[in-house]
């Protein structure tokens, strides 16, 4: 209370800023002012360019894969694809490795987290701006190593680098593992920065339970990044030592234990699945609150379920190894704990649905993505429960059923939440609005295209189509053709999104400070924010108390009524 009154005394509230104002984008000029920047917003933008480029690369691999599988189905063109099996192996490896290590893991934390987290805290930057820049350079170094892999004979181990194949193949395993190792550092530095920032730079008046839920999700994500990624680092280091020196720890021919590699790998890579999905869930919580114009239902349940998912995520890695020779006892234990992850995930879904109930829902583009998320994540999550069941997994393991399952989670859910978040914060990041109609058309193409591509893969998988095969029996031709057509629709949708964004940068209408009426602190500064983030310290109240923002038709945005906000805040304290 006293905090608020101090702020009131300190003078008038931000409001609109004239066109002459500098913002973080035009604050200083020249390439070096970007490459040496310590500004979290600029680092976020640099991440955006790099990560979306990686997405394009990994996505094109996917289209090539689907096309190859389509051509297999046509006997008259079969010669075209003859002898391309090695290429196929390389493409699915690069598709997986690039998209996992260079897109899905950094996408939300490194782009939107970097951009929004300090703003949501009313802070001037993350706790360690230099480490933040270092993290981007680590990302670029890792990306360069992957580029080297691409040019030096490729990689055909699958993104999982399973031994003993990875220690015997002649492709660039050492360079790829080093690339992933360096990318891991980038991820660790981001997580470390976020933990310290959330702990140390919360403003006066923002207790843990007044934090926006996106920050809870990023915090949970950071815990995983910090605790799991080092194990990946040592795994990759050992694998590198294995391929270069043949120390033999993972190589059965040398007395080593290949199943141990899987333990090492999945101790990181299962929690990493939650690095991918948790920040997306955080975005959905924000979208639900803003576009239903309601307090999020069950705030603390959603907050704690993020932490619960992060912690439980460390106890289930063995469900990737049910058929790998893992012991029966471990299988049973891991299967049991796997089911328990469904509980916090379902808590989130139910709370979002309850938030929508009687909310005044506006179907803006970000909200459409949130709705798509709920649909896709429910399918992806529930099929995960199927696969957690030991007996069913023995049958479905390494089939397209698994492929469909994790694409529903890692692409369907994560990608929709990422794009939804990008649309939501786009006006804040660039100060430009996008074309709503085109954005909605793109959403439709993505949603339909995605389901066409992957739903049928559940069926193909349950019929026995194994994953990672360049060829298949004739009875699977229909599924593959269908899926490939779907993937084209999905790709077109994604390109329309890209077009929509670029178009907005050039021709977009100037964005108001707050186009959606959200009350988290990033909306309390201009769009785009100034270099130092805020013209004056923002007013910290309940994050989802949106009644103090009034719609102003002349700017097609919301205007803050500070007196009302203070009044509402005082009411909530009495």
């Amino acid at each position: 209370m006293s905090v608020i009154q101090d702020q009131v005394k300190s003078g008038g509230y931000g409001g609109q800023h004239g066109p002459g104002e500098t913002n973080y984008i035009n604050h200083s000029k020249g390439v070096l002012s970007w490459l040496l920047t310590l500004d979290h917003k600029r680092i976020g933008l640099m991440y955006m360019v790099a990560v979306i480029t990686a997405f394009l690369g990994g996505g094109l691999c996917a289209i090539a894969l689907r096309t190859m599988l389509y051509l297999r189905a046509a006997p008259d063109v079969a010669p075209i694809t003859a002898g391309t099996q090695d290429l196929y192996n390389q493409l699915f490896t690069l598709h997986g490795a690039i998209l996992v290590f260079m897109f899905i893991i950094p996408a939300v934390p490194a782009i939107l987290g970097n951009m929004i987290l300090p703003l949501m805290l009313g802070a001037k930057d993350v706790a360690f701006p230099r480490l933040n820049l270092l993290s981007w350079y680590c990302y670029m170094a890792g990306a360069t190593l992957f580029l080297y892999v691409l040019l030096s004979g490729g990689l055909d181990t699958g993104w999982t680098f399973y031994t003993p194949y990875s220690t015997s193949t002649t492709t660039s395993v050492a360079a790829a593992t080093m690339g992933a190792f360096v990318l891991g550092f980038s991820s660790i530095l981001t997580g470390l920065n976020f933990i310290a920032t959330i702990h140390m730079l919360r403003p006066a008046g923002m207790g843990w339970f007044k934090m926006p839920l996106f920050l809870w999700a990023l915090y949970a994500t950071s815990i995983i990044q910090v605790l799991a990624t080092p194990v990946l680092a040592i795994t990759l280091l050992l694998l590198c030592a294995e391929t270069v020196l043949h120390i033999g720890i993972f190589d059965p021919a040398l007395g080593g234990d290949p199943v141990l590699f899987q333990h090492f790998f999945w101790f990181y890579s299962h929690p990493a699945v939650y690095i991918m999905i948790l920040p997306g869930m955080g975005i959905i919580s924000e979208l639900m609150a803003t576009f239903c114009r309601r307090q999020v239902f069950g705030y603390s349940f959603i907050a704690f379920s993020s932490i619960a998912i992060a912690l439980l995520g460390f106890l289930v890695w063995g469900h990737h190894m049910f058929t790998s020779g893992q012991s029966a006892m471990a299988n049973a234990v891991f299967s049991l704990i796997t089911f328990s992850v469904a509980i916090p995930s379902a808590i989130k879904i139910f709370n979002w649905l309850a938030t929508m109930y009687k909310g005044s829902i506006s179907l803006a583009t970000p909200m459409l993505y949130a709705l798509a998320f709920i649909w896709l994540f429910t399918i992806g999550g529930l099929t995960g429960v199927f696969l957690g069941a030991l007996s069913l997994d023995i049958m479905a393991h390494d089939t397209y059923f698994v492929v469909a399952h994790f694409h529903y989670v890692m692409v369907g859910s994560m990608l929709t939440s990422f794009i939804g978040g990008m649309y939501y914060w786009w006006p804040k990041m660039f100060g430009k609005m996008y074309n709503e109609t085109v954005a909605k058309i793109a959403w439709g193409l993505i949603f339909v295209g995605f389901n066409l591509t992957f739903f049928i893969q559940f069926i193909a998988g349950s019929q026995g189509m194994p994953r990672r095969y360049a060829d298949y029996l004739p009875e699977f031709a229909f599924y593959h053709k269908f899926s490939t057509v779907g993937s084209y629709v999905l790709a077109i949708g994604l390109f329309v999104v890209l077009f929509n964004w670029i178009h907005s940068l050039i021709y977009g209408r100037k964005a108001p400070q707050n186009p959606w009426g959200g009350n988290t602190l990033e909306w309390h500064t201009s769009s785009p924010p100034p270099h130092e983030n805020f013209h004056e310290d923002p007013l910290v109240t309940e994050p989802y108390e949106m009644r103090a923002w009034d719609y102003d038709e002349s700017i097609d945005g919301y205007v803050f009524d500070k007196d009302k906000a203070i009044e509402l805040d005082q009411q909530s304290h009495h």
Partner: protein
Amino acid sequence: MNAHTNDDHGIGHVSPIWMLLGVFALLIFFTVLTVAVTYVDLGPANIWIALAVAVVKGALVGLYFMHLRYDSPFNSLILVGAFLFLAVFIGIALMDTGEYQQNISPPDTVRPVAG
């Protein structure tokens, strides 16, 4: 030794010299102890004694040299948390590899389980 026990001046805890030297003496004592113990055959107990001594030494370093005793408890939580997750990792991996060992080793290495 001059014992400045209360010369705090706002930032951080200043460790008195006697404490630093005392901790060092204890660490050396435990190092000698852990080496000495290896000359006595205590069967499987040896490794556990060695690890227990290492934990005590590690705790001394953490609490006094790294100021954890006087620090924000959250820093200790990070350290303990890291060890906890490590224990989960090593524990489960050890349990599982122990279980399946008989399936992967050639017959001449299989040792019957003592029972």
